[in-house]
């Protein structure tokens, strides 16, 4: 109910409200927006329901203590970073080094704002040229997903790739497209 009432207020505005009156209720509204997402992220890495729950509670404690102290431009990205970092520490304690490798490097986690610039500057001719340089699997998955609007499951059926392969072809393809386009733009 409360979440619905404050839906129109952005995360940054909620944070500003907290910074101006120090009422932690604002932080509560902000954090509850991401409870389920954070639970999912912690479960992905810790693979234990109880530990994932405890992890989110610890992350919230940290957020309640630190969100007012430091300037945070994008609270959502900040929370994701904190969650990844927390899971990394937990896995280190467990000495599960293999799982740690699967966690994205913190530097790879994008701030929400960076996407907007790319969209604004998107040059379709350049994109088309970059698409030609992708490998066949990535090009097929990206074309089916973005141009033909197929779901992961449909792409998997059409191509014979597993769902995981489809997802990673799309993610890696996107990343490669960005790199190729940036290279072409700099020439």
């Amino acid at each position, binding site marked *: 109910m409360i979440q619905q009432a404050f839906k129109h207020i952005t995360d940054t505005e909620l944070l500003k409200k907290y910074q101006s009156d120090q009422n932690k209720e604002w932080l*509560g509204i902000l954090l509850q927006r991401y409870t389920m997402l954070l639970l*999912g992220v912690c479960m*992905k*890495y810790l693979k234990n329901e109880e530990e*994932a729950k405890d992890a989110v509670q610890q992350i919230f404690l940290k957020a*309640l203590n630190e969100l007012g102290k430091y300037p945070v431009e994008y609270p959502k990205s900040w929370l994701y970073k904190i969650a990844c970092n927390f899971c990394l520490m937990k896995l280190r304690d467990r000495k599960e080094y293999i799982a740690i490798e699967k966690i994205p490097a913190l530097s790879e986690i994008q701030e929400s704002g960076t996407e907007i610039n790319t969209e604004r500057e*998107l040059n*379709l001719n350049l994109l088309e040229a970059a698409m030609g340089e992708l490998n066949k699997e990535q090009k097929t998955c990206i074309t089916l997903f*973005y141009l033909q609007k197929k779901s992961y499951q449909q792409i998997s059926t059409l191509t014979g790739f597993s769902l995981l392969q489809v*997802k990673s072809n799309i993610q890696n393809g996107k990343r490669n497209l960005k790199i190729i386009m940036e290279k072409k733009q700099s020439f």
Partner: protein
Amino acid sequence: MNNWKDIFKKNTEISNEELLKYLDNDISEDEMHTIEQKMSASDFENDALEGLAQFKSREKIISTTDIINQQLKKQIAKSNKRKKKRKIEDQQWLIAAILIILLFSIAGYFLIHFNR
């Protein structure tokens, strides 16, 4: 060609309801594609869905989320109460200090006045 713009589209939020519906496969192909497009624009959502899919049941996701939120509310209420109490205590000290100064001033006045 217009669809290509979606590749680097700014991330739009996925609601909890959408997440659960997606996990239950309880949506049309179009809705599924929309959610997957949002997922592909954000590592956060992508990781979260992968993790949520590992829960034993959807009910467990909902109940665990509720427990965490309740705990958070309690923590915030406790913290706000403590802050309020500290504020009142600070005010009490201030009032006591003012009263003492006032008392000394009055005593000083009478002392000087009667010594004359």
